[in-house]
């Protein structure tokens, strides 16, 4: 996927100006997700679950070479063909070969962020293969030619009227068709695709090294269908997606569901061990493509490597007051919101992504939501610091920080400025732009005397 993260501030402002409805749709959806997550966390000892999950993932990552080789061995024992890809180029070559060998004409695809990274759909289309995204939200944005704007809810930026209009144009449904009627139309189109596709493509939520099990979570049933009906299944798996033991799924499946959608478990979980046995329904051939695409670079980073624990649940997006204003599109890459702001610089390099770590108020809500306790606020600061060191940060920031530092280090300058600031008109009188903040709040009145003067008087 093309990276446009450098344009973040401009794109965010443009979106708010030109598509004001997006803010409302995204805010509504994310607050709903966030409410569900909070309720689901309250039901359990969330701190203990998160800490356990963090430790399992840290163990996995610090033994990643061992577990990758174990996973490959187990998968092969069950008849799965394992491929390794450093990036899009190799992934494309592997997929091209599978498409050619099986004469694939039609593909059903389960939602996968990694395949967005790798640009799988454009590749297939260039090969003349028909691709159907089968997650309802993904299907909507595929019809619109847009990238996903949220990890879990790719179409949360669309309001019902947007979708009614889209379906009216595409399928001739009434402009006021109900969500049920619209879903029924999509179901019909996609059911036909499931029954006729030659190849199913998916990602994976987890790959268990001990048993070679691919685990995939969803609510619609499209992943089960995509991995059950076509005769070939290809799963693209990021190398950080492994889990050591099968029973670790008993923690990670419900924890991910609680974090992502507030459910105790997603409606469907597919646990795939390999191709169908003789006389069984299911794909005759299963391929797993283990993909690096920047992950080993991140692993090498002694601070940022912790983001590799990420489960792609989207909880930090839902918790983020900045993401909520725009959704994911202005971030300019597959991963948006707080996790995108710390993951994208690690995967793609800071040069192409440096505005993203600034897309945060550092309020810490993302950390509270994260099921694997990724210290996102700390890492946002790490990336900002690196941006400054490499001369990528906005120049005004450097100037402001240097001036601030000068003033703070000199008692006489500090007194001068604090006196001057107390004499200035208050911001609420100055800036009608701050109305949203000042409304419903009393005016901020600085104390007539600063603390150091009061202290002096007290001592006397």
């Amino acid at each position, binding site marked *: 996927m093309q990276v446009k993260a450098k344009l973040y501030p401009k794109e965010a402002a443009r979106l708010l100006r030109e598509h004001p409805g997006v803010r409302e749709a995204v805010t509504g959806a994310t607050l709903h997700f966030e409410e569900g997550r909070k309720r689901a966390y309250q039901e359990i000892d969330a701190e203990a679950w998160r800490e356990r999950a963090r430790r399992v993932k840290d163990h996995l990552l*610090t033994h990643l070479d061992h577990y990758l080789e174990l996973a490959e061995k187990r998968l092969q024992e069950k008849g799965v063909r394992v491929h390794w890809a450093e990036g899009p180029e190799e992934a494309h070559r592997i997929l091209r070969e599978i498409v050619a060998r099986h004469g694939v004409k039609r593909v059903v695809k389960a939602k996968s962020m990694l395949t967005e990274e790798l640009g799988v759909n454009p590749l297939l289309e260039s090969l003349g293969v028909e691709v159907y995204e089968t*997650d309802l939200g993904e299907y909507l944005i595929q019809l619109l030619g847009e990238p996903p704007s949220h990890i879990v809810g790719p179409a949360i930026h669309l309001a019902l009227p947007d979708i009614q209009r889209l379906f009216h144009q595409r399928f001739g449904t009434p402009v006021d068709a109900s969500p049920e009627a619209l879903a029924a139309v999509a179901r019909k189109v996609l059911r036909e695709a499931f029954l006729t596709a030659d190849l199913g493509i998916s990602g994976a939520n987890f790959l268990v090294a001990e048993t070679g099990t691919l685990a995939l979570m969803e609510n619609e049933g499209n992943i*089960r269908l995509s991995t*059950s009906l076509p005769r070939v299944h290809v799963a693209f798996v990021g190398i950080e997606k492994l889990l050591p033991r099968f029973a670790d799924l008993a923690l990670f499946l419900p924890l991910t569901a609680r974090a992502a959608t507030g459910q105790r478990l997603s409606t469907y*979980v597919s646990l795939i*061990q390999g191709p169908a*046995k003789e006389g069984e329904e299911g794909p005759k051939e299963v391929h797993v493509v283990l993909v690096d695409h920047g992950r*080993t670079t991140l692993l090498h980073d002694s601070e940022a490597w912790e983001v590799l624990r990420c489960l792609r649940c989207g909880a930090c997006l839902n918790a983020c007051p900045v993401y909520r204003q725009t959704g994911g599109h202005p971030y300019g890459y597959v991963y948006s919101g707080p996790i995108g702001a710390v993951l994208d610089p690690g995967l793609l390099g800071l040069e192409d992504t440096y505005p993203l770590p600034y897309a945060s108020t550092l309020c810490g809500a993302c950390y509270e939501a994260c099921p694997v306790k990724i210290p996102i606020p700390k890492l946002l600061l790490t990336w900002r610091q690196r941006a400054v060191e490499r001369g990528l940060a906005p120049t005004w920031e450097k100037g402001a920080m240097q001036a601030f530092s000068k003033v703070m280090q000199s008692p006489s300058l500090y007194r001068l400025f604090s006196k001057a600031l107390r004499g200035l008109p208050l911001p609420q009188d100055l800036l009608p732009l701050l109305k949203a903040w000042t409304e419903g709040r009393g005016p901020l009145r600085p104390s007539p005397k600063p603390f150091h003067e009061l202290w002096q008087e007290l001592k006397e």
Partner: protein
Amino acid sequence: MDAKSRILSRIRHALKERPKALLPEHPHPAFSQDPLELFLKRLAENGAEGHLVDKEGARKLLADLAQGLSGAAYGKGVPDALRLLPELPPEEAPLGVSRALFAVAETGTVALSSEDGRKAQLLPPVHLVLVEEERLYPSLLEAFLDLKSLPSAIGLHSGPSKSADIGQVMVKGVHGPGRLVVAVLQGTW
């Protein structure tokens, strides 16, 4: 060097100085609630229907569901005594009947094996799942620790197919069955 060796060597290089983290033990399952009661409650909360039945009750439940239907698709494990309707291909059947590998109380889940089939679990709009009470585990962890062998695919189903992708309105039966009915059998079929 091929991609695999390059990736693995980069990983080893990256981990050279990194302290190894220990793998925590699985927690001890502590469950006080009656699993059967909890299972039925969770199914209802998930939007599924749960029934506790004996052999006769199972037949009656199936007869009720079968009313007005032309046939059903069956999983391989469904006992002959419960094949009340003529068998139809899953693509056309208005009802799918499966036999679960096990069930989990804490999440309201039935586990379906590829050995029983796949299409009957996914294509018909209504899905009836049969499971023996003795195959009910209190928790996911106990079920997973107890699994001796793994079929080529397991589907964990915890309710009807649903989506809120259209304008945040919950719609059932998007791709999989819009109705999930679970019959928990006391005794044998």
